[in-house]
């Protein structure tokens, strides 16, 4: 691990200002993704600003419009177990519980989970070219081993997927990411605009600025309906998604679907949801229109179709 200096921040604006002041500085929350990558020297921060002691961003509270505000520091275990989340946003509990391990969920935070980096095997291998890790070096995955990588929204520069389960549920629930900048200005980013497609700049996973601190994630008022998170993976527990589906199905037959394991961001096509009356195959076909799989991961297209059918069954 490269050397770095360390400080503890005590307020959101102070934390953002501390990162802005030191070139190469980063926030650290649970540390479960950042430290993993720092050990491999894929992340090389010069200064760490520890946000764990910041007051007021570690609670789950009701919002004025009947939704929930989830503090950035709320741990994945606490969020999944919260009585309001279990009752009104069960798809979120289910997605969280399908991810990582008990030990990791006890540390992983809401903000850190959204910002975890891809699990593309070449991103993790500093000996191989990777545009996301080292912009301009090329993409080893496109001609390489791409079984777990993206099938849609890909570019010639990168075919990585976003690995978070939680983010898929946040997308189906239309969450909003709340931030604060070093000057104290706040911003609300709809989850649909938070994660981005790789395009020519795969080094940027999200639209967040480097010195912008996430303070909370808000959920709109409960949707009701049946909530399902269905994850397909190489073993029954403790593995990232090959494909996953987050679904909320209302009593009147309307439904929402977001997909994991397919793209550089949680994949949701609202127009495809209107096809639900014609069956899940019609939804899958519309949601996957324009897919560009590799020979290794073309199997994901029929797998999504079947996973979606199983999720609503």
């Amino acid at each position, binding site marked *: 691990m490269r050397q770095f200096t*360390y400080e503890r921040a005590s307020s959101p604006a102070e934390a953002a200002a501390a990162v802005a002041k030191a070139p190469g500085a980063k926030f650290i929350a649970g540390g479960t993704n950042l*430290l993993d990558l720092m050990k491999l020297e894929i992340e090389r921060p010069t200064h760490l600003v520890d946000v764990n002691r910041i007051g007021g961003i570690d609670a789950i509270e009701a919002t004025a419009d009947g939704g929930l505000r989830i503090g950035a520091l709320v741990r994945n*275990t606490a969020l999944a*177990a919260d009585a309001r989340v279990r009752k009104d946003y069960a798809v979120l509990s289910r997605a969280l519980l399908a991810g990582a*391990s*008990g*030990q990791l969920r006890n540390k992983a935070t809401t903000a850190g989970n959204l910002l975890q980096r891809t699990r593309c095997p070449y991103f993790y291998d500093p000996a191989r070219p990777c545009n996301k890790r080292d912009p301009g070096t090329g993409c080893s995955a496109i001609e390489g081993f791409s079984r777990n990588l993206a099938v849609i929204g890909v570019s010639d520069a990168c075919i990585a997927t976003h690995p978070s389960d939680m983010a898929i549920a946040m997308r189906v629930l239309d969450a909003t990411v709340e931030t604060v900048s070093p000057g104290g200005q706040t911003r609300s980013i709809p989850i649909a605009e938070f994660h981005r497609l790789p395009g020519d700049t795969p080094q940027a996973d999200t639209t967040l600025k480097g010195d912008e601190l996430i303070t909370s994630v808000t959920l709109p008022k409960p949707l009701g309906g049946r909530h399902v998170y269905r994850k397909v993976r190489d073993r*029954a*527990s403790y593995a990232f998604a090959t494909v996953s589906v987050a679904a909320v199905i209302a009593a009147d037959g309307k439904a929402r679907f977001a997909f994991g394991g397919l793209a550089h961001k949680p994949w949701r096509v609202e127009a495809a949801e209107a096809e639900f009356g014609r069956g899940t195959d019609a939804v899958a076909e519309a949601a996957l229109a324009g897919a560009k799989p590799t020979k290794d991961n073309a199997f994901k297209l029929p797998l999504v179709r079947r996973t979606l059918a199983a999720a609503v069954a």
Partner: protein
Amino acid sequence: MPVSFTVNGQATSLTLDPRVTLLDALREHMALTGSKKGCDHGQCGACTVMVNGQRINSCLTLAVMHEGDEVTTIEGLGSPENLHPMQAAFVKHDGFQCGYCTPGQICSSVAVLKEIEAGIPSHVTADLDQVAFSDAEVRERMSGNICRCAAYPNIVAAIRDVHDHA
């Protein structure tokens, strides 16, 4: 930089490079070598300890992030003369072969029983509001602790024994 926390009930002050993980602080700076380093990347669970009552991977957290925290390691659960019930159950049920994963398995197991008791659901909980002990719950909740010797059936038996006799 200086950091103070409590380990197994004892107040401790250390001066550490910020790069030192909690696992390395325990093993290299406090001679508490019960917690093991398997992967050093959060993948195996050999380094599992409890911090403020919650199990975590001590390899994926910096020691300096734990100012004021209460850490419990396998050494704090019991001693050879006075085993913790979970340690005794692992011995009784042969819950290990080489023993390398065992301190992490035991710390995790103790926390798992508390998590079930606290009503924290898991991936295999059918109704999120009805959390009850079962072998399937134990297997899912222990999936972050890998055992290269595959002592899994006996580990589940040990945990079940402690649960049944609690």
